[in-house]
């Protein structure tokens, strides 16, 4: 057991003292801790709840304010008036009026306002008629409660998910009522959640783990919870205990896990009437921080108290433990053998008593040790001796010396003879000996003593009756004892011991004597057995020497005996084999076998190789047997030398094995060669058959069997000539047979069942040069023939194609010599015999200034290994003139992918190039001229305006002042002048507008044509009303354009359509369609139509088809339209038939590619 640790007095003292301290501190601090925690929890929970209730008030106040504002907006006079007008207006005007109504209050909607959107809903259909968010117009909200409830009074709908925005929305509605109080529309709003979010998150976010959010009645967040990383609004469900309590209409606070599973203090507040739950929370860990700090302080105090306690307990327990430690040290010394050690301790009392007992114990141990050492002395005497008399003599003297007895004698009692023999004695006079012997032979004391095996002790001889008493007294012997010496039932005798001391034989001494008696008995038995074995050994030795066989006797593998024959077998072994291990005489490889046999009961003979002393090996047959030799288990082996016999047997076996091996090798070689030949034949792409002179097939590969239509297994032994008979003509068969005679091969090609086969029959000559057999080989050359034909035809085709194309094609080798070309190339080279070109290079064929250019180009293409893009080249022709050509080049590869040359094509584009140049120049001139013209028109019209205004003003002044004051003719002339001036003013204005199409055009930007047309129709509403026209507008796209100018286009085209009408009700159809890369727009009318011959003229500036009186206008509209369309990169045209209306088409390139 360990001396230290918790089991020591010090350890125990420290433990109990420490425990006491800890329990004491815990008893004091834990109630304080729990009380503090409870206090904090209540404080935080009340705090959270108070904050929640405050927020609840603010949120509800915000709702009240929002709904009150909405009601006020719905009752604004101008809003009501516009809605009223809209409700009684024609459908096409309704939207505009509704929009005007919403425009009155649109300032109330926006990012930092109560409402993010305001919209007006038709009270009957639920359709949104106008909105601050244009894309909502036209949608229906007839199923929504804010609309249904909003028809009768202000209402806020519970928060819900908006599919369009993908987030939460709170919608409210309020009735718009006319003067009679009837609901004429619903003013609806989407409440701005930014404010409500701000209220919700107030205060709480200053705490590290604080969070506050709103949930709707389906547990979905309306505001984003702080610790959910992804967007959770309306997309994540929060089903915590607090959330579930809250959405079921409760308000309170609780200790529970939050949505992250973290223990928290949570307050939850239900906002009745709005379907909203407000959650405020903080992690318990953060809330309990003050009390956790207190807990830490307590822990530190506990550790300090524990340290002090341990110190005190150590001092006290040391005083108790020191004497005990000394006691322990003394015990350890005794344990080490120092039995004289004693301990003196005075206090404490309990330890002093223990020390006294310890000293007594040490003294007793000392006595025991003395007895034991005496005993060891005697046992030592008994164990070594083999002579009985010596033993007994030695013993009794040792007894006298060691044990300290005064007289000892050894008596042997013969029960049959009833005779007591005393063989050895000491300390006894002859007289006493005689008297003792006489006395004992008379009585049965000695016999009885010997037979029951118990000692007889007389601690005083005074009690002995008769003469012996006197003799003992005379000799000085005061006490006697008889100790029996017995093994099992055999009585060896008795030790009789006398002492001069009275009461000498204490129980311990008697026990010691009895032990001596037992050891003596064993020693006597051993001596007896030894004698017997000596005799047996002698008898056996004589027997083994008498046999002819070699006999060896071993005991546990060690040779204990052998006969002379064994020495003969070992051939001159020096020294005695006895005492040596038997396996030393066995070949190392056979030693395991010998060991195994020696450890078993197996008596079957076995063979081993033995080792002679000269190192030679002999083969021996061993017959072993276990024998009982005087109680010892010995192994006797008869050994027979069979070396000669064995050698003969081995020689015979080897001769037979050699023969078998040779036969096997040869057979294998033959089979291997046959297999190689067979597989070689089968790997051939030709069919192969070996035929004997009589036509018998002696061998064939699989292909041959297949071709001949015979199965693989059956082919051998068949007659080839018979098999061929049906397929081959007799003449050919005869030729084949002639090989036997002539020794000359025969070959022919034959087409059979769609296969072309090349047959060859050859003689197989024997060693004597005579034909021994015929070998037939057949190769299927169908594919090769087919490929040959295809190659020919594809080459023909390639040549035809090359010659048919107008481009020049040529190809060269790596050294840039021409290898081939097409007809166009030959023609361009102006050469009569095309073959002359082959093998020549550019230096010999083209203008010297181009040679290096072409060759460098060829080399680059070959080096890059890739096709060169098409390019235009400006070159010098052979006659020195300048030419253009378009060329491309590509490397030529062989089958392994190596570049072996170059392929080129080119064509002369000189004519085309010149035309392009001319066109470009013309276009530039035209653009320049146009620009100058436009500038002129602009300047002219702009600068003409001022003098014209003066002319007109003064003419009008003359008209007012002198009308009716001059003659009638003058009045008429003045009238003409005023009219002319007015017309000129109109013309100049138009001209200015026309010129501004180019000079004052805006940047192109995304333009919604639908809106443009809508605006134009609005502007033309008076004209439309007057003509009672039916306008149909199809779906129109968004394009990149100048919005104002496109407005002018539609204004002109629609205005024309309305203007040039016939008697029928006016119908105008506006539409668009998409074609390849452009949008085609059209304006179709059912008006008077236009004669085809005027299709071009109408687009010319100031060209009119009708008298000014019939249709007003200057005739510039379509010219402006054309110019605008052309500025956009588009075209304008028309389809028309007089009397059946016109359709004006114009195109606009997609995505504003035009400028």
């Amino acid at each position, binding site marked *: 057991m360990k001396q230290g640790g918790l089991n020591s007095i010090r350890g125990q003292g420290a433990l109990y003292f420490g425990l006491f301290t800890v329990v004491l501190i815990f008893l004091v601090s834990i109630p304080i801790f729990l009380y503090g925690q409870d206090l904090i929890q209540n404080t935080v929970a009340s705090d959270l709840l108070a904050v929640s209730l405050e927020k609840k008030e603010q949120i509800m106040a915000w709702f009240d304010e929002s709904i009150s504002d909405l009601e006020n907006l719905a009752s604004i006079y101008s809003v009501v008036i516009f809605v009223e007008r809209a409700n009684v207006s024609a459908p096409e005007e309704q939207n505009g009026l509704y929009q005007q109504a919403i425009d009155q209050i649109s300032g109330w909607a926006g990012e930092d306002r109560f409402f993010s959107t305001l919209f007006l809903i038709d009270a009957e259909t*639920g359709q949104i008629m106008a909105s601050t968010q244009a*894309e909502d117009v*036209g*949608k*229906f909200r*007839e*199923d929504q409660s804010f609309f249904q409830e909003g028809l009768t009074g202000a209402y806020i709908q*519970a*928060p*819900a*998910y908006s*599919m*369009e925005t*993908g987030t939460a929305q709170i919608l409210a509605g309020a009735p718009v009522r006319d003067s009679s109080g009837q609901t004429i529309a619903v003013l609806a709003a989407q409440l701005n959640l930014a404010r409500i979010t701000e209220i919700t998150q107030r205060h709480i976010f200053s705490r590290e783990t604080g969070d506050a959010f709103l949930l*709707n*009645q*389906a*547990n*979905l967040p309306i505001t984003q919870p702080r610790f959910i990383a*992804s967007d959770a609004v*309306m*997309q*994540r*469900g*929060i*089903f915590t205990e607090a959330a579930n309590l809250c959405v*079921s209409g409760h308000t309170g606070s609780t200790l529970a896990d939050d949505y992250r599973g973290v223990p928290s203090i949570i307050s939850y507040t239900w906002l009745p009437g709005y379907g909203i739950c407000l959650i405020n929370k903080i992690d318990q860990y953060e809330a309990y921080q003050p009390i956790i700090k207190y807990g830490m302080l307590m822990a530190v105090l506990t550790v300090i108290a524990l340290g002090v306690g341990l110190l005190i307990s150590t001092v006290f327990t040391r005083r108790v433990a020191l004497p005990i430690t000394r006691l322990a040290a003394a015990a350890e010394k005794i344990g080490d053998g120092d039995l004289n050690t004693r301990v003196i301790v005075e206090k404490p009392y309990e330890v002093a008593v223990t020390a006294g007992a310890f000293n007594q114990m040490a003294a007793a141990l000392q006595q025991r040790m003395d007895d034991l050492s005496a005993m060891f002395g005697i046992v030592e005497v008994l164990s070594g001796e083999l002579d009985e008399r010596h033993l007994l003599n030695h013993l009794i003297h040792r007894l006298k010396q060691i044990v300290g007895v005064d007289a000892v004698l050894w008596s042997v009692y013969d029960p049959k003879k009833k005779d007591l023999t005393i063989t050895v004695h000491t300390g006894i006079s002859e007289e006493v000996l005689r008297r003792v012997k006489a006395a004992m032979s008379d009585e049965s004391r000695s016999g009885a003593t010997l037979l029951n095996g118990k000692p007889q002790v007389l601690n005083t001889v005074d009690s002995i009756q008769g003469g012996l008493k006197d003799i003992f007294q005379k000799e000085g012997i005061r006490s006697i004892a008889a100790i029996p010496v017995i093994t099992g039932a055999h009585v060896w005798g008795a030790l009789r011991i006398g002492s001069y001391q009275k009461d000498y034989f204490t129980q311990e001494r008697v026990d010691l004597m009895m032990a001596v008696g037992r050891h003596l008995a064993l020693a006597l038995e051993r001596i007896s057995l030894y004698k017997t074995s000596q005799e047996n050994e002698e008898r056996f030795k004589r027997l083994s020497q008498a046999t002819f066989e070699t006999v060896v006797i071993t005991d546990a593998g060690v040779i204990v005996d052998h006969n002379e024959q064994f020495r003969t077998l070992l051939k001159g072994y020096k020294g005695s084999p006895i005492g040596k291990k038997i396996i030393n005489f066995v070949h190392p490889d056979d030693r395991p076998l010998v060991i195994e046999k020696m450890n078993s009961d197996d008596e079957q003979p076995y063979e081993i190789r033995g080792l002679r002393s000269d190192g030679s090996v002999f083969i021996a047959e061993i017959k072993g047997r276990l024998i009982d030799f005087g109680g010892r288990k010995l192994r006797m082996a008869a050994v027979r030398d069979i070396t000669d016999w064995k050698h003969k047997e081995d020689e015979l076996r080897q001769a037979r094995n050699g023969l078998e091996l040779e036969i096997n090798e040869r057979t294998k070689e033959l089979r291997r060669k046959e297999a190689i030949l067979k597989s070689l034949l089968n790997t051939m792409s030709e069919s192969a058959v070996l035929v004997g002179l009589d036509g018998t097939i002696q061998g064939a590969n699989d292909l041959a069997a297949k071709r001949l239509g015979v199965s693989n297994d059956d082919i051998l032994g068949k007659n080839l000539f018979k098999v061929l008979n049906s397929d081959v003509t007799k003449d050919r068969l005869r030729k084949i047979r002639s090989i036997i005679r002539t020794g000359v091969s025969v070959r022919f090609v034959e087409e059979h069942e769609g296969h072309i086969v090349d047959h060859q029959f050859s003689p197989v000559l024997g060693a004597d040069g005579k034909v021994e057999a015929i070998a037939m080989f057949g190769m299927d050359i169908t594919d090769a023939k087919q490929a040959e034909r295809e190659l020919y035809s594809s080459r023909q085709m390639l040549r035809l194609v090359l010659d048919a194309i107008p481009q020049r094609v040529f190809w060269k080798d790596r050294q840039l010599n021409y290898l081939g070309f097409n007809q166009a190339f030959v023609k361009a080279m102006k050469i009569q015999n095309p073959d002359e070109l082959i093998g020549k290079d550019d230096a010999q064929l083209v203008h010297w200034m181009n040679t290096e250019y072409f060759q460098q180009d060829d080399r680059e293409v070959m080096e890059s290994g890739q096709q060169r893009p098409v390019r235009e080249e400006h070159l010098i022709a052979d006659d020195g003139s300048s030419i253009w050509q378009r060329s491309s080049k590509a490397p030529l590869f062989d089958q392994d992918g190596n570049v072996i040359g170059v392929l080129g094509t080119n064509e002369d584009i000189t004519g085309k190039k010149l035309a392009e140049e001319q066109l470009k120049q013309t276009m530039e001139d035209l653009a320049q001229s146009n620009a100058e013209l436009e500038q002129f028109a602009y300047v002219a019209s702009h600068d003409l305006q001022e003098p014209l205004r003066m002319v007109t003003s003064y003419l009008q002044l003359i008209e007012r002042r002198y009308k009716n004051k001059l003659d009638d003719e003058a009045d008429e002339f003045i009238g003409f002048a005023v009219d002319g001036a007015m017309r000129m003013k109109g013309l100049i204005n138009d001209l200015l507008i026309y010129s501004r199409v180019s000079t004052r055009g805006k940047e192109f930007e995304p333009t*919604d044509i*639908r809106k443009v047309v809508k605006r134009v129709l609005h502007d033309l509403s008076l004209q439309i009303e007057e003509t009672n026209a039916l306008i149909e507008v*199809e*779906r129109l*796209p*968004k394009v990149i354009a100048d919005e104002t100018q496109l407005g002018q286009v539609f204004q002109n085209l629609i205005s024309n359509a309305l203007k040039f009408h016939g008697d029928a009700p006016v119908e105008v159809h506006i539409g668009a369609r998409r074609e390849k890369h452009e949008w085609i727009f059209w304006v179709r009318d059912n008006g008077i139509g236009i004669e085809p011959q005027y299709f071009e003229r109408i687009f010319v500036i100031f060209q009119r088809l009708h008298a000014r009186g019939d249709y007003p206008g200057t005739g510039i509209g379509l010219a402006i339209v054309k110019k605008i369309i052309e500025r956009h990169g588009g075209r304008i045209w028309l389809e028309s038939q007089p009397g059946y209306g016109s359709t004006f088409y114009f195109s606009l390139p997609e995505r504003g590619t035009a400028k």
Partner: protein
Amino acid sequence: MKVRFFSLAVILLVLSACQPVQPLTQVTLQLNRAHNSGYGGFYAADQEGLYARQGLAVSFLTGSADVDPILPVVNGEAQFGIAPAEAVIAARSQGLPVKAVVVLHQHSPVVFFSLNEYGIDHPEDLTGQTIRVSSSTVSMLHAVLSHMGFEPDSYSELVLPASVDAFLHGGAVVWTAYSTDLSVELEFLGYDLNYIYPDDYGVHFYGDVIFTTEEIIENQPDLVEGFVRASLAGYRRALQDLETVGSYTIEYDPELDLDLQLLILQSSLPLINTGTVPVGSMQAEHWQAMIDILRDDGVVETSLQAEDVFDNQFIEALTAEGQP
């Protein structure tokens, strides 16, 4: 003491092991599309043992535009099916004995969408257009357009498979499809889309519903209740933990893109839990309005009534318990 406690635990364990094990009832659910996270609630119920707790072992049959989800349920190959509400109405009007037991999507996920560059914002923009339809969206298209007063010949219809490739090259400018499906994928790929929501134009259809046969409702009400209970609990799990539930989808089709599946599930959940009505609930007026619209459109020709097409008992039982 420890030994005694341990022995007690062992005895309890052995006793519990000796309890007879209730075999699970095999149930098959016919889906109306290929595996996708829109079915996340069913996957959650399967993966998290919610079905097993109801004594059910559920296997799934995937659907596609070519598979009518109604017939396998009528024929008994599946016990439950998912189909658009209008498909159940149409089946019912043809005399097939099926009824909806849960409305999965309170709003139909069918929307009309087109590339933003076409400027198609309103139903009137649909005239003259080629519109892609499928068996599950054509009724909705007809309903909206007929509700808006368009003639059937003012646009043309084209049947195309719901794939990005078909959208880009199939020849249809406007597409009708589930907002929880292809459009999510297209936006995921960066295309800017314009949407027209039928809900905005007076067509308020339910979306997918869970349906079964009248025979199963009558003879195995416990089976239906267990299935409905576990499935809706699965969707509640999806609301709580979108990422985990979304990732289950990959168990059913390892080829799917997890990020896209999370977006699909995210876009499905608001249709399921709108915040205005209990999850799964059904209103007779709503069904009746659908039937009336479909009758106007010629899909329903019989005197079908709302109560013929749905059975609210299972949802009402769950709602009464405070679930889902």
